[in-house]
């Protein structure tokens, strides 16, 4: 247990040390020299914990390789791979209600996910050293990434739902801080706020779901919750509430709108958050609690996934911003995982999660290298880059191949696993899921090809010399390293490959690729997105969902806020001030009798006596 705790704490310590110690003791002066020294120290503090954590995780793999574990559905690969299970606690917090157990648990799911997290984090940290060279705020940036990593690891290893929630929310904060890293630009700032708020909305539901489970089971410990025999109604309610958090964090319909905007952050952040870690948390938690997810909840999840995967893929096809293409692609791919979960196969979902983590991180980092070079995110500003940027070109090609699902990349195996699960699932919405997934495979091929062609082929657009120098090695090495899992990871699951199903998938995917290729050959300068015809505009705007939310949520809230402020001054405080005024008016009124006329005084006196006498006698 201590090992797991150390894994979680290492990046945390790195974060704290990086935040407080990078500039110490010369924090005040911000000379170039000081900045550089701080950046060097911060980089060491950020990077060193990760390899150590990975080594410790290796030890955990060894510890969990055998042993009786939890009761997972057959064919769940991580349970097959690492069946061990351990848990421990350092104390119980008595809150007066259901107590909170401060503890961690280790099993195949958590160890494998943790490895993914650490690997991607390591890649991102190394990559960032080059990507943010010269940025005076690099130390805090690196520390936030460390904090983020730590939070994600806490989610992964937590043995208690509320402890998990702590990490869950901390990630939201880190994503806010990192997306808004370049806060000089108001747009980035807005995107960061949006990301935090949308996910927080989901998190509130998530918290209520935790309450429901915890109170029903009498404990917030995950093991107790899973072991408890809970009534179906409670489970449906609880898991539906949990889905809110899942939808928020994993960017599922209808809470996905923050993810494309979150691309405003530095590209490595997009790779980290929006490929490997935060978005994975939602899928992870469903897998973690999968045994208690009843069918109705899974059906809801399935419908959301079916809508999300196709819609996001179509949106990706029409985007001009390379990172937004990848963002919508992420939404779409996450929907695959959700669909797999809905189909009752957490194994396929997590398998895809891992392979997706690897190739999407790769894609983002490549995109980062491209953007670093071009100085713009827009595909229309790119073109013909394959000669200028050979390493990003080749690695990105591999990444796109994995995205489309071409053999022998990991994407081929994992996507096939998902589709196989969908095809054979017992879910009542099997057809919907499978059909949607199949069409999405085609669309995925199409948008991946489009982005690849528009970026690396065709006329070379005039360069903006924003970053005159070529990408430094620290940015290129992670690309190369990440191609390894992208290419090889899939063979872990090669044994489960079903050839017939795989062939169908492959054909559909290639069909999508072929259509775009044909369109491009017909007119190389034009955007293949024109194939969408009248649907292009709605796709580009992601079906106007942002505007709808703006009209339905944001603006009414602001209007309500203004109303409240007005009410507060005019009504609530008005009543207070009004009573004051009333007293003063009364004062003026009473003073009318005090104008100095003694006869009036005597009259008042006698009238008063008369009144009192009459009153006393009558009453």
């Amino acid at each position, binding site marked *: 247990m201590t090992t797991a705790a150390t894994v979680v704490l290492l990046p945390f310590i790195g974060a704290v040390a990086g935040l407080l110690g990078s500039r110490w003791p010369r924090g005040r002066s911000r000379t170039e020299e000081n900045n550089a020294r701080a950046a060097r120290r911060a980089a060491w503090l950020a990077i060193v914990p990760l390899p150590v954590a990975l080594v410790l995780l290796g030890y955990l793999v060894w510890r969990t390789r055998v042993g009786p574990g939890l009761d997972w559905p057959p064919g769940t690969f991580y349970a097959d791979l690492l069946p061990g299970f351990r848990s421990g606690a350092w104390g119980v917090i008595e809150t007066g209600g259901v107590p909170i157990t401060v503890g961690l648990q280790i099993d195949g799911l958590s160890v494998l996910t943790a490895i993914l997290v650490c690997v991607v984090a390591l890649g991102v940290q190394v990559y960032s050293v080059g990507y943010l060279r010269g940025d005076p705020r690099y130390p805090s940036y690196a520390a936030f990434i460390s904090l983020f990593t730590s939070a994600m690891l806490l989610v992964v290893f937590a043995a208690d739902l509320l402890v998990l929630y702590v990490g869950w929310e901390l990630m939201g904060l880190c994503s806010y801080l990192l997306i808004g890293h370049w806060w000089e630009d108001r747009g980035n700032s807005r995107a960061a706020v949006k990301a935090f708020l949308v996910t927080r909305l989901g998190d509130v539901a998530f918290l209520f779901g935790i309450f429901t489970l915890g109170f029903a089971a009498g404990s917030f410990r995950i093991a107790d919750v899973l072991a408890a025999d809970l009534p179906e109604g409670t489970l449906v309610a609880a898991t539906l509430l949990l889905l809110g958090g899942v939808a928020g964090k994993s960017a599922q319909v209808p809470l996905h709108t923050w993810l494309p905007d979150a691309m405003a952050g530095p590209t490595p952040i997009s790779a980290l958050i929006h490929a490997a870690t935060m978005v994975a948390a939602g899928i992870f938690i469903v897998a973690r609690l999968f045994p208690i997810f009843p069918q109705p909840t899974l059906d809801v999840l399935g419908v959301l996934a079916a809508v999300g995967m196709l819609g996001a893929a179509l949106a990706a096809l029409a985007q001009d911003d390379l990172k937004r293409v990848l963002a919508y692609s992420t939404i779409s791919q996450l929907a695959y995982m959700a669909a797999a979960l809905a189909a009752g196969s957490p194994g396929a979902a997590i398998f895809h999660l891992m392979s997706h983590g690897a190739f999407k991180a790769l894609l983002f980092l490549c995109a980062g290298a491209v953007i670093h070079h071009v100085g713009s995110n827009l595909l229309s500003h790119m073109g013909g880059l394959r000669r200028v940027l050979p390493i990003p070109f080749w690695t990105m090609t591999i990444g796109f191949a994995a995205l489309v699902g071409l053999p022998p990349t990991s994407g081929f195996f994992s996507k096939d696993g998902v589709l196989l699960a969908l095809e054979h699932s017992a879910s009542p919405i099997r057809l919907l899921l499978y059909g949607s997934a199949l069409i999405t495979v085609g669309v995925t091929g199409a948008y991946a090809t489009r982005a690849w062609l528009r970026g690396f082929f065709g006329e070379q657009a005039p360069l903006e010399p924003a970053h005159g120098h070529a990408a430094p090695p620290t940015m290129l090495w992670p690309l190369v390293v990440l191609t390894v899992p992208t290419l090889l990871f899939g063979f872990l699951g090669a044994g489960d490959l079903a050839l017939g199903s795989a062939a169908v998938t492959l054909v559909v995917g290639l069909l999508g690729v072929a259509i775009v290729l044909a369109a491009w050959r017909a007119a190389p300068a034009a955007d293949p997105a024109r194939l969408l015809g009248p649907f292009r505009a709605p796709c580009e705007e992601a079906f106007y969902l942002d505007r709808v939310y703006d009209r339905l949520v944001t603006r009414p809230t602001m209007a309500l806020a203004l109303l409240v402020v007005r009410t507060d001054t005019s009504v609530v405080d008005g009543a207070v001030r009004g009573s004051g005024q009333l*007293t*003063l008016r*009364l*004062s003026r009124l*009473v*003073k009318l*009798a*005090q104008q*100095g006329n*003694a006869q*009036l*005084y*005597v009259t*008042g*006196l*006698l*009238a*008063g*006596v008369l*009144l*009192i*006498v009459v*009153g*006393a*006698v009558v*009453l």
Partner: protein
Amino acid sequence: MIQDIDYWAIAAPLILALVAGLVLLLDAFLPRRAQVRTLLGMVTLAGVLAALGVVVAQAVRGDQIGTFCVPGGACSFVVDTYTLLLAGLALAAGAVVVLLSMGELAGGRIPVGEWHFLLLAALTGAVLLPASRDLIMLVVALELVSLPVFALTALRRYDGRASEAALKLFVVSVVSTAIMLFGVSLLYGITGTVHLEHIATALITGTGLTIADGAAVLTVAVVLVVAGFAFKVAAVPFHFWAGDVYEGAPVPVAALLSVVSKAAGFAGLILMLTHGLASETATWAPLVAVIAALTMTAGNVLALRQHHPVRLLAWSSVAQSGYILAPLAAHLDLASALKAATPTDTETMVASLPSPSPGTTDSTGNALVIVKDQAMDLGQVAGSPLAVQASLAYLVFYAAMNILAFSVVMLVSRDRGDLDDYRGLIRRSPVLGLALAFALICLAGLPPGLAGLFAKVAVFREVVFGGLGWLAVVMAVNTVIGLFYYLSWAARLFAPGESRAAERPGRTPVLVAVGAALLVTVAFSAVPQLVFFTIS
């Protein structure tokens, strides 16, 4: 029939009266010089202090003396705790007023001998009043407090405002007196006696009454009798005169009116209500409640946004009268309670009285006799003695803080005073500023003015315990209104402002007055149990 006179019992008013005569003589035969003015003041002060010494001595000896007694046991002049407390209060306040007067007289516009004579006469009345136990004594003592004050007000002979104030005070006062006397005559007619003790017996037992129990005439008599005292304490609807008179009168007279004269009024009122009319609680308690509510509200509302400090204090003292009245409304209605009570209730209630055992309460007649006996001794128990105690405690605290405020005003104010004169006082003269701020905060009833706070708490307690929730709420609201004007004055003390202090002659005695009043007020705030202990 020759009566024995207990001269020790009447020593205090006697000394005051004799010194009054002495002062007049000295004034007539000594030359009119500044030293003589001081001498007369010192003589007056010595007289007041001597009387105070007598009162203290009587209190220390624990005297319970009655004199001018008639066959049948009733005495017209009684010295007991109640008498001594109120006499002591009047004399202590009177001493401060004498000091203030010395400041006022230093101006030389006022005849000194007459002033001190009248002051002593008024004080004689104020000492006499709480000792009175029959209607004649009450009426005479009350007039003795009133009449000299008219003259004192008008003594600044060439000041039109003072004359006007005197006239207004005079007219309202004589009308009130006439009303009260009419009530007294009716009461006499109904009960056939002038002694409060006999009146109470007659009303409780019904023996000797000339009319049927509960007739309207009795109610009318009660209301009219209360009127005279209500004028003294400036309760609604007898409050109209307060603002104009306080403003027009010299400041020491205003202080006299607001403390000594008011204390005398309350002394008489409480005597009348709880002594003579104890059985009529059902009639007068609701009346007092309504009057208290109206008084505090009217006083506070009138005091809002005043710019003349003395006028503000006038209305504030009206409001404070309301607070003092409030507990009386919660006075336990013994007679009807006894009549209506179930045996157990009676037992619990009577058990709270000191002597009688529950066994004697079985027959109502016995219980009534017991109650009557008890009622005679106000110092111990009369109905709910706590209600009276709360009023008295409030009166004591109020006297201290109000006289402190007047003392400071005496030093700072000019004839046509304005609150803005007090701007920056805290820096011009920190002690005066702090003293005034303390007095005002005490009057508002907030810490650090614990005296005011505990006074209010005591009053609130009686009202709540008496079940008068509505009155308590009215009081609560009034406390807030009161705070507004006290604070607006107190805040001025701390506000930046130019120095406009008028240097007037005769500061020293007034400074002594401020010091004494401050000392007492602070003592009351630090150890308020002093007062509660003395009263209970």
